């Protein structure tokens, strides 16, 4: 299993490596959810869903099911 955004813990960061799943809404891609871009988990709602992220300098919230489709590589500060 590869690491996805859904595996991030609060405050952790990563680099997106693959966002080509066809179930990722286009809108998310256009907001910068593309390979090579940085992602950071800022806040979690109860039950860890939705997730409040900073992707490519955009602040947005997505559901965990969507986050689990975006493959990343965790980075340390």
């Amino acid at each position: 299993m590869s690491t996805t955004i859904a595996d991030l813990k609060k405050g952790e960061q990563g680099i997106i490596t693959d966002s080509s799943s066809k179930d990722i809404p286009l809108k998310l891609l256009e907001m910068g959810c593309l390979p090579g871009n940085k992602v950071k988990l800022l806040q979690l709602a109860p039950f860890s869903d939705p997730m409040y992220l900073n992707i490519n300098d955009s602040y947005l919230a997505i559901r965990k099911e969507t986050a689990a489709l975006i493959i990343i590589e965790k980075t340390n500060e």
Partner: protein
Amino acid sequence: MSKQLNVALIGNPNTGKTSVFNALTGLNQKVGNYPGITVDKKQGVCRLSRGVKAHVLDLPGTYSLNASSLDENVVIELLLNKNDKDYPDVAVIVSDVENLKRNLLLFTQVKDLKIPTILVINMSDVMGRKGISLDIEVLEKQLHTKIALVSTRKNTGIKELKILIENYKSLPTQQCLDASTIDPVYFERLKIAFPNQDLYKLWLVITQDVNFGKITRQEPDVSKFKTKSFSELKRLQQKEAIKRYQFINNVLKEGQNIDRSKARDLRSKFDRVLTHKIWGYVIFFVILLTIFQAIYDWATIPMDLIDTTFAGLAEWIKNTFPNGGKVTDLFAEGIVSGIGGIVIFIPQIAFLFLFISILEESGYMSRVVFLMDRIMRRFGLSGKSLVPLISGTACAIPAVMATRNIENWKERLITILVTPFTTCSARLPVYLIIIALVIPEGYIFGLSYQALTLMLLYLIGFGMAVFSAYVLDRIMKTNRKTFFVVEMPNYKLPLLKNVLITVFEKTKTFVFEAGKIILAISIILWVLASYGPGQQFKNAESIVAKEYVYSSETELEDKVAAYRLEHSYIGIIGKTIEPVIKPLGYDWKIGIGLVASFAAREVFVGTLATIYSVGSANENESIDTIKTKMSNETYADGSKVFTFASGISLLLFYAFAMQCMSTLAIVKRETKSWKWPILQLIGMSTIAYICGLIAFQILK
């Protein structure tokens, strides 16, 4: 007059696009509708120098030219159709200095349609605070455009923007990205198939139809040209986004410098509290309580004033034109009280939209959506359904209108269908009088039974909304995957001007859209109540005078009015439906009240007052008089009409029944079909009937 200059304002949500629009046009704006769809069309007039005027269109906020909602689709349809009378001579892209990278994606897309384009960089006042510096000259050169640095908060840059708009002809129209680099082979074939068309435009048309269903458009017709599957096209769109970001990143590397050490971060401080797992909910709850307080308490002051004014006006008409006969009555009782019935809602609606627009402008609403999404999703709703459901406690009409920003059609439809279950303000007068009638006074733990009942009714309404959403979610099938992407904008102090304009526009929409229908129904009801077939209606006066012993003139008049109503068309309707409502514990008089409630629920009280001969000037009577009359009302055998059983049954009926023509009309408008409002009417009324029946039969 020479041809007017068309300007289209385009931009991401939360960039202050509307502030720029307000700064350009002031109050010279109007909100209409795009034909056939229910997206608000905001347009205004802007004076440029030397008496030149521009027609400014404020297009719905969108992140790109690939639409995922009806609102966004408007933007694309306009930009693709050169024959549209609103097709812009110049496009003004509004961006936010802090999100320039993401905002520029849309800019490059519009630019590639070869429309003269100006870039507005808004909120320039925060640049220093955020450590951002821009090299405008480099940016203008690289993006092939002219840039206006604007701060709507500090009111700077608008003059410069107007000059740029006026000189739009000198704007370069080079493209930012050569679309054919996305897939050279595919685009080569497109070029051969449609030699006279712009390539990027073709590409947008193709992807648009795939994503958004077929939309009738004159040209070009690309339906025959299908060589790529859905997922292949999506992969190309992803590739396009990547290419655009490459271009943007290169531009910004030279033209923008961000020194993060200088940035002061308010966002994380606020978020730590406002999206906290406990405090976030506590704060939201307190805000909700304040809104309720405003709608119920503060709004009553202007509402009472409106009520007295209109009652007084009706009275004045009657006294001034005593010989007008039916015409006077039509004006006094039909039209004036009909208009009064609309105007009375203005304070509540204005308060509601005041709060909603403050919450939205400040950026807080997105945090609420974030906090509530998980809970709402369990019932087939979205975090975004919360605003409509809360708004529904004032009035279902603006609430249904507020569902528009839910992208997912199924979630939106369910929200629309269940919102009328929430206790709207029109139910309140009905609840108050029946509770006063059948619920005993007394206290438990320091809380009065009556207040507890009222609270319970609110909870029942909300509970039924959530429960039916859950059921609908199970029943309805959907082939579209739900998706949820919410931008979390920066916290901002709301601009007073924007808030006031929103309140004014929304209130105006309510008055004119819903008002038309309410007025029409009021007049129909008045006619039904003022005319009747046969001699009994015509000779009411002499019949009553003969049959009853009366002590005063007023008493006689009251009796005559009641007798007339009984034999009017509406009275006949009431008697006809009596067998149906008998098992719920209602007599034909309550039946008339139920029928009349279709204009607006609160009409129930007034109608009953008239039927129970409280007097023709019932609007001015205190609630106690009506209450006394109602509690004395008995059947032929001497048993009381309003008992605990029939009262509870009536409360439940009002809690669940769809009794509002205006809501049905707005649902029809928002869903573009009669199917949903009719289903809603049948479904809700069935639930109401069954609950009323069970309650009465058990408690009897």
